[in-house]
C-alpha cells in the first residue's frame, strides 16, 4: 500500500510538475502568512512580522529544494535543465555545433549505409522456414583441387535416398539460364532457373498462387510446367490469378504456369523470373555421365532433433560406399555440408566486414575531431564553469551536464547521419555491387535505426568525455584569477588536444593505408593483360528458341547470316562468335587424353569453349603456331581443335602439339571422339581478370553443338555507334528474338573487376574523408595553440625573431603530432591490413611503397594544415598581442 502510494505520488509529481510545484508554493506562502499574522497579533509592525516569519522558517528555497529532492524526480528535472542549457549552448555557437554535426553525420551516415547492407546480407535470416535447419551439400576432390564443388546428380540422388538425417533435399543449377518470353508484348529475355521438384517445399516457401513443383517433376513426365516470380507475374500478367493453368510461350515452347512465388521470396545468387523443374530423363540415373559430370548444387533440411554433425557422419558413410561402388567416377570424391546461409553469403562477409571496419574507423576519427572542437569550446567557457563551481555546483553535475551537451550533439548528428545513411543505402543498392549484395532487400529498418541510435550515443559519450573531465577537474580560483583570458589553452588542455590529434592521425593512417593497398591492387588488376583486346569491341547475346531452331543447320544458317551482315556494316573491322566471353567464367571442364601416350592420362582440369573462325581475329588473340579455324571446319568435316598456350606448356612441354590427336575422355573407348590440334593461340583469362588463364580447348561451334553464342564485333572507332544498327540487323533476321547483354567488351572487362572497383572506390572515399577530418583536426589544434600563445609570439616578434622562426615553432609542433600519429598508425596497420589479404591482387598486406607513400602524404597534409596558423602567428602585431588581455 505504502509503496503503491509512493509510486502514485511520484507519478503525480512527474506528470503534473506545475501542480506539485504550485501546491508547494501555496503551502509555504500560507505558512509564512499565518506566521506573520501571529507576529502582528503579538504586536510587531507588519514589515518586521514578515521578516521574522521568514527568519523562523529558514530558507524558503532550501526547503523547496529539499522537497523537490524528496519527490524522486530530481534526475528528470536536472535532465530537462541540462538539455535546455545544452540546446542554448548549441545555438549560441552555431559554427562549432554545425561543424560537429556535419562531421558526425558523415561518420554515422557511412555507418548506417554499410550496416544496412550487413543487416540485409549477414544478420537477417534467409526468407525461408526455419532457415537454420538448412544445409548446403557439396563435393570435394583433392585430386582435382575441388573444394565445395558442384555435385554429380547421381551422387546427389543417392544421398537423398540413403541419408536419413535429411528431411528432404533439393538441387539447383547454380548458373542462371535465360529464356525468351514471347506472346505478351515485346519479346522479353528473362532469367530462368532449374530446380528439383522439392526445392520450394524443402525451403518452406509456399506459392502465392497455384502450387509448387512435385517430387516426380524432378524427372521428365512429359509435361512442361513453370513457376513465375512475383515480379514477372505483376509486370507481364497484371497479377491475374487466372494465369494458373494457362500456358505461356518460353523460347517458342508452350509451358503451363502452375504457380507464382511470393514477392518476398529470393534465393541469393539465383535471380530468376521463371522456374522450371529439372525434368531429367529417367534413364539418366543409369548413365555414367550423370555421375561423372558435376553441375548441380544441393541443399537439405535436417530432420528434427538431428545435429549437423550427425547428418554429416551419416553422409560420409554413404559417400564411402559410393567411392567403392563407382571407382571410375567417385575415387577420392568426398562431400560435406555447410549451413546454407554461410554458404550463400560466405564470400561477401569479409568485404562487408572490412567496410564496416573502415566506417568504424571513420566514426572514431569524427569523434576525435568533435572532441577537439568541444575542447576548444570548453576552453572558451572556462570562466563560466569556474563561476558555477564557485557557486557550489557539484563536479559530477558538471560532468553530467557536459555529457548531456555532447550526447545532444551526437543525437542531432545521428539524426542527420540517418538521413544521409538512408540516401547512402539507396546509392549502395543502386551501385549493385556484383557478388557483394546477393540479396536485393537492403533497406533501413528498426535494427538499423537501433544500431545508429546506439553508435550515436556511444559517440556522444566518447567525444564528450574529454571536455567533460577537463571542465570539472579544475580549481575555480585559478580560472577566475586568470579572468578567463590570457593563457586560454592551458598546458592540460593542449595535452588533451594533442592526444586527440595523435589518435586521429593514427586512425586516419590505418584507414588510408587500407584504401591505398586496395588502390594499388586495383591498379595492378587494371594493368593485367587479359589476353584479348577489349577496345572497340561490342558484344551481344541472342537466344535462339529451341522450338524454332530445332535443327543444327537452322542454327548455323542464322549465325552465318548474322556474322555476314554484321561484317558488312560500315565501321566494322571483324566479327566473331564465342560460347562464353572471356572474363565471365567458364561453362564446362573435363579431362582429356592424347593419342599415342601410354597408360591412363593424368587427371587434368581443362576448360572448353566453342568459337567460330573469326573469333580470335576479332578479339586479337595471337596465333602462336599452326592455323586458326576457317570456313572449311564445319559439321561433317574432320574434327579439329585449338589449344591455348597454357595447355601447350603444361601438357606438351618440348613437343609440337599441332597435328596431335586428343579426345575429351580420360579413358578413351570406342565411342570417344578424336580431334586434331590445328593450332596454338594466346591465353585469354577465362574466369576473371584476376585469375590466371586455365588450360583450354577451343572447338569450332559447328562441331561442338551446345548452347547459345555471343557475338563480338570489332569496330574501327566507337563501338557504341553500331548498337542501334546491330539491333536492327537481328530484328530483320528474326523479329521474335530477344537481344540481351548488348555492351562493349570494355564494360565486360570492367564488370569482371566490379566488386574490386566497388570496394576500392568505397574505401578510397572513406579514406579521403578520414584524411580530411584528421587534417582539419591538426589545423584546429594548431590554431588553438597559436591563439593561446599569441602574446608569446608577439613578444618573440617584438624582440626581433624572424617570421620564419616563429612559423617553425608552430609547424614543428604540427609535424611532431603527425609523426606521433603516423608511428602509432603504422604499428597498428601492420596488424590490421592483414585482414585485407584475401582481397588483394599481387599486393602484399605490408606493401612497402604504400606504407611509405601514405604516411608521407599524411605528414605533408599535417604540415600544410599547420602552415596557416603558423603564418598567422608570424604576422601578429606585437603591440596588439601585448594589449590583447
Amino acid at each position, binding site marked *: 500500500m*505504502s509503496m503503491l502510494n509512493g509510486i502514485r505520488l511520484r507519478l503525480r509529481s512527474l506528470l503534473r510538475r506545475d501542480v506539485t510545484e504550485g501546491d508547494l508554493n*501555496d503551502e509555504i506562502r500560507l505558512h509564512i502568512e499565518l506566521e506573520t499574522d501571529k507576529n502582528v497579533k503579538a504586536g510587531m509592525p507588519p514589515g518586521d512580522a514578515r521578516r521574522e516569519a521568514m527568519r523562523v522558517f529558514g530558507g524558503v528555497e532550501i526547503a523547496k529544494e529539499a522537497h523537490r529532492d524528496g519527490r524522486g524526480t530530481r534526475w528528470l528535472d536536472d535532465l530537462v535543465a541540462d538539455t535546455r542549457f545544452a540546446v542554448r549552448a548549441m545555438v549560441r555557437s552555431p559554427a562549432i555545433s554545425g561543424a560537429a554535426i556535419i562531421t558526425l553525420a558523415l561518420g554515422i551516415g557511412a555507418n548506417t549505409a554499410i550496416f544496412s547492407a550487413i543487416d540485409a546480407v549477414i544478420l537477417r535470416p534467409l526468407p525461408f522456414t526455419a532457415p537454420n535447419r538448412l544445409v548446403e551439400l557439396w563435393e570435394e576432390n583433392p585430386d582435382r583441387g575441388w573444394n565445395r564443388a558442384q555435385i554429380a546428380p547421381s551422387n546427389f540422388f543417392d544421398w537423398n535416398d540413403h541419408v536419413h538425417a535429411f528431411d528432404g533435399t533439393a538441387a539447383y543449377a547454380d548458373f542462371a539460364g535465360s529464356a525468351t518470353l514471347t506472346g505478351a508484348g515485346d519479346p522479353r529475355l528473362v532469367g530462368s532457373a532449374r530446380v528439383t521438384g522439392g526445392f520450394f517445399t524443402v525451403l518452406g516457401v509456399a506459392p502465392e498462387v497455384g502450387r509448387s513443383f512435385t517430387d516426380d517433376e524432378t524427372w521428365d513426365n512429359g509435361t512442361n510446367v513453370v513457376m513465375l516470380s512475383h515480379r514477372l507475374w505483376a509486370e507481364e500478367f497484371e497479377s491475374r490469378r487466372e494465369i494458373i493453368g494457362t500456358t505461356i510461350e518460353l523460347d517458342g515452347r508452350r509451358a503451363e504456369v502452375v504457380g507464382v512465388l511470393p514477392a518476398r521470396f529470393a534465393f541469393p545468387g539465383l535471380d530468376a523470373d521463371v522456374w522450371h523443374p529439372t525434368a531429367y530423363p529417367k534413364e539418366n540415373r543409369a548413365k555414367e555421365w550423370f555421375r561423372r559430370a558435376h553441375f548441380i548444387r544441393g541443399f537439405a533440411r535436417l530432420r528434427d532433433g538431428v545435429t549437423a554433425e550427425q547428418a554429416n557422419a551419416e553422409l560420409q558413410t554413404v559417400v564411402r560406399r559410393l567411392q567403392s561402388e563407382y571407382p571410375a567416377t567417385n575415387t577420392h570424391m568426398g562431400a560435406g555440408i555447410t549451413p546454407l546461409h554461410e554458404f550463400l553469403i560466405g564470400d561477401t562477409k569479409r568485404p562487408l566486414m572490412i567496410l564496416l571496419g573502415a566506417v568504424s574507423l571513420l566514426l572514431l576519427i569524427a569523434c576525435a575531431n568533435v572532441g577537439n572542437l568541444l575542447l576548444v569550446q570548453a576552453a572558451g567557457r572556462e570562466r563560466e564553469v569556474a563561476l558555477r563551481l564557485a557557486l557550489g555546483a557539484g563536479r559530477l553535475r558538471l560532468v553530467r551536464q557536459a555529457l548531456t551537451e555532447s550526447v545532444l550533439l551526437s543525437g542531432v548528428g545521428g539524426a542527420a547521419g540517418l538521413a544521409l545513411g538512408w540516401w547512402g543505402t539507396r546509392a549502395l543498392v543502386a551501385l549493385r555491387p556484383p557478388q557483394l549484395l546477393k540479396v536485393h532487400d537492403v533497406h533501413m529498418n528498426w535494427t538499423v535505426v537501433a544500431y545508429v541510435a546506439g553508435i550515436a550515443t556511444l559517440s556522444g559519450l566518447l567525444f564528450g568525455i574529454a571536455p567533460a573531465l577537463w571542465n570539472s577537474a579544475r580549481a575555480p580560483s585559478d580560472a577566475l584569477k586568470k579572468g578567463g583570458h590570457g593563457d586560454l589553452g592551458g598546458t592540460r588542455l593542449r595535452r588533451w588536444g594533442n592526444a586527440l590529434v595523435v589518435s586521429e592521425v593514427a586512425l586516419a593512417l590505418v584507414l588510408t593505408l587500407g584504401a591505398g593497398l586496395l588502390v594499388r591492387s586495383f591498379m595492378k588488376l587494371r594493368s593485367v593483360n587479359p589476353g584479348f583486346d577489349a577496345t572497340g569491341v561490342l558484344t551481344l547475346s541472342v537466344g535462339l528458341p529451341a522450338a524454332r531452331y530445332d535443327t543444327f543447320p537452322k542454327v548455323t544458317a542464322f549465325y552465318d547470316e548474322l556474322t555476314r551482315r554484321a561484317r558488312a556494316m560500315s565501321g566494322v573491322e571483324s566479327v566473331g562468335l564465342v560460347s562464353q566471353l572471356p572474363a565471365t567464367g567458364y561453362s564446362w571442364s573435363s579431362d582429356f587424353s592424347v593419342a599415342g601416350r601410354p597408360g591412363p592420362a593424368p587427371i587434368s582440369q581443362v576448360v572448353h569453349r566453342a568459337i567460330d573462325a573469326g573469333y580470335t581475329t576479332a578479339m586479337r588473340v595471337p596465333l602462336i603456331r599452326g592455323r586458326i579455324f576457317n570456313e572449311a571446319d564445319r559439321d561433317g568435316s574432320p574434327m579439329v581443335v585449338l589449344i591455348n598456350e597454357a595447355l601447350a606448356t603444361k601438357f606438351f612441354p618440348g613437343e609440337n602439339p599441332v597435328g596431335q590427336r586428343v579426345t575429351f575422355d580420360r579413358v578413351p573407348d570406342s565411342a570417344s571422339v578424336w580431334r586434331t590440334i590445328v593450332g596454338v593461340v594466346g591465353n585469354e583469362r577465362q574466369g576473371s581478370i584476376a585469375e590466371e588463364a586455365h588450360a583450354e580447348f577451343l572447338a569450332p561451334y559447328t562441331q561442338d553443338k551446345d548452347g547459345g553464342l555471343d557475338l563480338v564485333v570489332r569496330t574501327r572507332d566507337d563501338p557504341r555507334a553500331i548498337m542501334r544498327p546491330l539491333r536492327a540487323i537481328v530484328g530483320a533476321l528474326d523479329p521474335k528474338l530477344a537481344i540481351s547483354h548488348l555492351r562493349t567488351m570494355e564494360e565486360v572487362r570492367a564488370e569482371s573487376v566490379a566488386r574490386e572497383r566497388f570496394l576500392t572506390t568505397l574505401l578510397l572515399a572513406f579514406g579521403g574523408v578520414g584524411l580530411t577530418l584528421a587534417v582539419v583536426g591538426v589545423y584546429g589544434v594548431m590554431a588553438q595553440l597559436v591563439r593561446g600563445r599569441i602574446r608569446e609570439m608577439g613578444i618573440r616578434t617584438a624582440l626581433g625573431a624572424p617570421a620564419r622562426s616563429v612559423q617553425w615553432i608552430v609547424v614543428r609542433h604540427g609535424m611532431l603530432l603527425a609523426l606521433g600519429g603516423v608511428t602509432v598508425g603504422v604499428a597498428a596497420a601492420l596488424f590490421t591490413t592483414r585482414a585485407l589479404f584475401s582481397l588483394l591482387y599481387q599486393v602484399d598486406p605490408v606493401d612497402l611503397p604504400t606504407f611509405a607513400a601514405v604516411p608521407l602524404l599524411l605528414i605533408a597534409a599535417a604540415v600544410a594544415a599547420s602552415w596557416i596558423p603558423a603564418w598567422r602567428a608570424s604576422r601578429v602585431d606585437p603591440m596588439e598581442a601585448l594589449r590583447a588581455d
Partner: protein
Amino acid sequence: MPATPPVPSDVIRGTLELLVLKTLTLEPMHGWGISQRIQQVSSGVLEVNQGSLYPALQRLELKGWIGSDWRTTENNRRAKYYRLTAQGRRALGAETESWRRYVSMVDAILRTA
C-alpha cells in the same frame, strides 16, 4: 552543493517525524498548525526549523503514514491538511516504542559512564 547544508541529522529527522505523527493523532492539521502545536506542547524547548517541516511531511506522505487534502481554513484560506492514516497510527506505536528504548539505552549508558 549549497554552501551551508540545513539537512537535519538522522536523529533529529526521525524525531521530527515522530513529533509530527504524534501531533496529527489529535486532528488533521496544516503545516503551520503542526509547527505551532509542537512548539506549544514543548513549551518552546523544541524550536522546530519550520523550513524542514515540509520535506518531513513529504517523506511521511510517501511512506503512506499520512494523507493530505486541500481544505479551507476558518479564515477562508486554502490550506493543505494532513491527517494520520491507519498505517501511520500503527507506525507511530512502533516508532514510539523504539524511541523509548533508544532513550532509555542512551540514558543507561550515560548513567554508567
